[in-house]
């Protein structure tokens, strides 16, 4: 226990490598040659990965109950005692501390591993773009923020990472900032996320008052630094299940998660975020950042277990999002937008899992999704690269033989996400569906199961629609593009192959009833209260039947896509024409952007316009007004002089007194600048009086002694 091992001791370094190279890029990057930028940025992420893997291995070598390692790097916000709602004196403090447990192990491996592959890919993909160093600087800054997010040992540090990834996301979405749609999308992402962040912040405040601490846990800490963490408080039995304050807290955290993880109602930013370069979509908007909400909810699972209403909310929102986003994915023509809606939908699955208490399944799906969705994005990037920037699937087709590596890796990922055994997506998705079905007595879980099942079918359908339109059929590629088609360089294809391998085998660690993954995460998601009769005991016929059903549904989706888009040409258009109203509704994303615009965005703009008018009216008016006042004052003064000269001797004493007030009025010009100047003059005067006298007397004593 005392000897933690080299990598665990140096866990604080994991985020520092990318931070250092990000600093280098953003400060000096412009001067560096491209090769140096690539080596520094990709290398730093690789070193991070090595350190992360080392730390996880050393953690894994310990017995299961000791697999929590915490290291406080320094005291960030020193303890401030206060009377909170928790009994006794609460201490608000936050350390810059790292927490490595089975949950954050999974996260850092995904983040650094997939992140590294995407960095390698970016060398090829971004090679021709301007701002190469800037791109990698932001990417590395993102890696730092994301690692801080998952390694932070308290909510506030998590929030630092949370905001950091939001910032990097904004910067990278708007990377091509000369393109208006890109910078608009960046802004939209930022603003929508703020709404969620507000909820998250309130949740942090509430947690700190009610639980008296914002540290996650005190396990793995010793000595003076030790005081209880939130999870320990929650597990101590001080709170009852279903207490309103816990539900409120859980809902607030979930609001934060809906922003970052693009759930209803804050999902609208993610499709637009596809304006960013494709590696960004892969890294941030598929594999890592958008899963931060899932991670956070899992991290707080002890809280959610005590708040059943909140859990149900999470499940329902997740299920709805999964379904809703999948419908929109059915009709998109932009290859990346299909994937974006698919991401939202898959994130919905993860929340559905969390909501029914299958935290392990949620994280498992997070991991497998990171593999195959990163691969899908990178593959689509490779397609776009091959077609000189074309993203519209209506102008693709027949690419299978022209870019074979991209094609077969893409196919692997598609089969994985569609849920075809034995690929990764099958196991994670199937587990979620099964756990939803077995989630509880209430009929709502059965409904959610059906929603999930239908969504699975739609997933298979829209993914194969994408594959069919892109790789099969007749080529609809424009002529001048056609002869440029080429397979991507190996810096891009090798990451594709590695990810394809992971997409195929990545699910095997979670084979049902072998449950390596579940046992690994068990200490983190252990039930708070002794579970009443563990949900499923053994392999049942029902579970096997369920598996069969989901496979059949997936195959059905594939068969439909094959029929509509390959077998019978023109059928798609016929169908669209037949169900025109529905098609239009879905194609326009249910007009949600328009609704939000008219409800919130335009109202805000109105307010801004009104304030602008105020500025113009008052502030600009004042400059004109001020001079007018000054003129009027001077003219009044001259009139006064006239009267004084004409009247001559009114009253001598009165005149003297009046005269004395003249300078006062002269300075009182009515101009605010001159007023401020007088204040400044006053301060200087006081300074001279205070500091001048001692100086003079000092000089005088000097002269005397001389």
């Amino acid at each position, binding site marked *: 226990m005392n000897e933690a091992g080299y990598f665990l001791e140096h866990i604080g370094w994991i985020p520092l490598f990318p931070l250092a190279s990000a600093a280098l890029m953003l400060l000096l990057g412009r001067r560096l040659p491209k090769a140096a930028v690539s080596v520094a940025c990709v290398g730093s992420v690789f070193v991070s990965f090595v350190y992360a893997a080392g730390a996880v291995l050393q953690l894994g070598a310990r017995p299961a109950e000791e697999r929590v390692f915490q290291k406080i790097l320094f005291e960030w916000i020193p303890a401030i005692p206060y009377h909170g709602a928790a009994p006794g004196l609460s201490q608000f403090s936050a350390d810059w501390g790292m927490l490595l447990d089975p949950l954050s192990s999974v996260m850092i491996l995904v983040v650094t591993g997939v992140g590294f592959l995407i960095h390698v890919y970016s060398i090829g993909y971004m090679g021709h773009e301007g701002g190469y160093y800037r791109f990698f600087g932001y990417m590395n800054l993102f890696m730092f923020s994301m690692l801080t997010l998952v390694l932070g040992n308290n909510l506030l540090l998590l929030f630092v990472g949370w905001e950091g990834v939001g910032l990097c996301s904004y910067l990278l979405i708007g990377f091509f900032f000369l393109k208006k749609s890109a910078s608009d999308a960046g802004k939209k992402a930022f603003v929508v996320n703020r709404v969620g962040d507000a909820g998250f912040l309130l949740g942090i405040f509430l947690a700190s008052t009610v639980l008296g601490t914002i540290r996650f846990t005190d396990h793995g800490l010793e000595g003076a630094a030790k005081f209880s963490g939130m999870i320990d408080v929650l597990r101590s039995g001080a709170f009852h299940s279903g207490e309103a304050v816990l539900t409120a807290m859980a809902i607030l955290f979930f609001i934060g998660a809906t922003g970052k993880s693009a759930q209803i109602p804050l999902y609208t930013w993610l499709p637009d975020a596809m304006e960013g370069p494709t590696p960004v979509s892969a890294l941030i908007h598929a594999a890592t950042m958008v899963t931060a909400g899932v991670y956070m909810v899992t991290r707080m699972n002890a809280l959610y277990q005590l708040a059943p209403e909140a859990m149900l909310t999470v499940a329902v929102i997740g299920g709805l999002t999964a379904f809703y986003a999948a419908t929109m994915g059915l009709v998109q023509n932009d290859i990346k937008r299909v994937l974006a809606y698919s991401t939202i939908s898959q994130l919905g699955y993860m929340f559905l899992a969390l909501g029914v208490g299958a935290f392990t399944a949620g994280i498992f799906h997070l991991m497998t999704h990171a593999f195959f969705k990163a691969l899908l994005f990178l593959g689509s990037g490779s397609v776009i690269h091959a077609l000189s920037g074309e993203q519209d699937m209506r102008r693709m087709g027949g690419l299978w033989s022209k870019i074979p590596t991209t094609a077969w890796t893409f196919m692997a990922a598609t089969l994985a996400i569609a849920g075809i055994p034995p690929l990764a997506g099958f196991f994670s998705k199937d587990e979620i569906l099964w756990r939803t079905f077995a989630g509880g007595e209430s009929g709502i879980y059965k409904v959610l199961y059906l929603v999930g099942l239908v969504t699975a079918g739609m997933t298979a359908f829209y993914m194969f629609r994408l594959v069919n339109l892109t790789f099969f059929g007749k080529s609809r590629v424009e002529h001048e593009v056609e002869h440029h088609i080429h397979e991507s360089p190996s810096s891009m294809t090798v990451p594709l192959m590695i990810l394809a391998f992971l997409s195929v085998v990545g699910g095997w660690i979670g084979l049902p009833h072998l449950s390596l993954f579940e046992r690994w995460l068990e200490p983190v998601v252990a039930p708070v209260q002794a579970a009443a009769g563990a949900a499923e005991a053994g392999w049942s016929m029902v579970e096997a039947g369920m598996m069969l059903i989901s496979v059949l549904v997936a195959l059905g989706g594939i068969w439909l896509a094959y029929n509509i888009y390959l077998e019978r040409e023109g059928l798609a258009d016929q169908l669209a024409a037949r169900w025109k109203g529905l098609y239009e509704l879905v194609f326009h994303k249910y007009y949600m952007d328009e609704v939000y615009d008219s409800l919130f965005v335009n109202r805000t703009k109105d307010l801004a316009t009104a304030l602008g008018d105020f500025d113009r009216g008052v502030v600009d008016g004042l400059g004109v007004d001020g001079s007018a006042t000054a003129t009027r004052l001077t003219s009044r003064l001259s009139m006064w002089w006239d009267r004084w000269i004409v009247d001559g001797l009114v009253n001598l004493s009165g005149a003297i007194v009046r005269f004395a007030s003249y300078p006062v009025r002269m300075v009182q010009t009515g101009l*605010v600048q001159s007023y401020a100047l*007088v*204040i400044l003059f006053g301060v200087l005067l*006081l*300074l001279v009086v205070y500091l001048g006298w001692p100086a003079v007397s000092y000089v005088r004593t000097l002269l005397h002694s001389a």
Partner: protein
Amino acid sequence: MVQDLLSRLGMQLPKEFALILPQVQLGIFALGILLTDFLLDRKSRWWNAVLALAGVGFSGKALWNLRNLEDVSAYHSSIVVDPFAVFFGFLFLISAALVILLSVRYLEIEDEHHGEFYALLLLATIGMMFLATGSDLITLFLGLETMALSFYVLTGFLRHRKASNEGALKYVLLGAFSSGILAYGFSLMYGIGGSTNLARIAQAYAERSPGDPLVLISLVTVSAGVFFKIAAVPFHMWAPDVYEGAPTSITASISVASKAASFALLLRIFCTAFWPIRPNWEMVVAGVAVASMTIGNFGAITQSNLKRLLAYSSIGHVGYMLLGLVAGTPDGFKGIAFYLLVYVFMNTGAFAIVILLRREGVIGEDIEDLNGLISRRPVAAILLLIFMLSLAGIPPTAGFIGKYFIFLSLIETGHYVLAVFAALYIAPALYYYFRVVVHAWMREPGGAARPTISVAQGVALAACTLFILVAGLLPDRFINFAGTTLQSQFLQMILR
């Protein structure tokens, strides 16, 4: 009330809560007014004023419960409730009540009768009360800004009048400028003391050598910020423009309550942190006081706008009060407290007369608008005479007693030159105050109509007059009341 309610709801509040209950009561009513305002149609907006008065009443009751406390620190010593704080708290509440009474009619005439007005007034009062109770730089600064921000808005409340907008903008800009300087000074104090607590800072200052430039710079910047708030020369430039532009009842509040609150801040800082370096600032404060009396009294002479005239006169009054600090004796501090108490009534009374002159279509702020008031509304003219006499410091009004204590303390401490200056400046003061009276009593009325007095205005005017006369003739009770401030620990420590 709040505590009863909460305890009935099963919510336990820390005992410390009672100490800020007066502020909390005001806050609840301020928010309540913002809510109920929506339910009221134009004709019944005066219910807002009733609510605001109720808030002041409840707050006063809570404050009354604290009257016998001696130096209770709370919230990690960020506030301290002592007789000083209670005295000033009453001052603010009285001023707020008078201003509310005077505002109803005025706002109706201006067609700007909104609930926000009363809410902001109560919020400003919360800020003031925290200024008086704060014993920590953060609390003091927050109190100051709460007060100032509310007044910025209130100054610009007459949206359709250019002068009001102009005044508000100037107030904001210059206020921000001075707050910046003050915050700089506070940061230096924190740097020197290593704490935001005034008592700790005082210890640190006592250990420093008196000529330490850091100490002196912090002294300069902090005093510049505070002098701005009390409108002492040379930081007074904003006062005439703001006083003229603001709604008249708010002018009364700025000149009285805001000034008293800033004086509370001044005394808290100068009598704790800065007391060890008193030799450094004694002469400078005296200089500022004399400059304020000079500029204030001479500037007022040629003003033809009544609000500007009163603005300059209030600069002069600040000079007098600062002299009490220069003396630094029990009589001096008692003098400041009593002066401020009297000032609440006499200055508010003077502004109340200006408010009477405001009618549909008549701005009524020019000195000519007073012409022939004695024949148009004799009561108003007589009250005006009483207020002016008191402002000038003529016995048997209360204003005389205030000045008397200041002079007494100056003579006790051997500041004869200052005493002579202070006495001499009564001459120009008499000149311009009587110019006002002359217009009201001796000029022909012209065609102006009779001013009317609403019930609320009548109550406020009666209260002001009554106090000035009673406190002028039988001052003992009130002097004792002002004297309670001396029992505060921070004053006890320096007076021992």
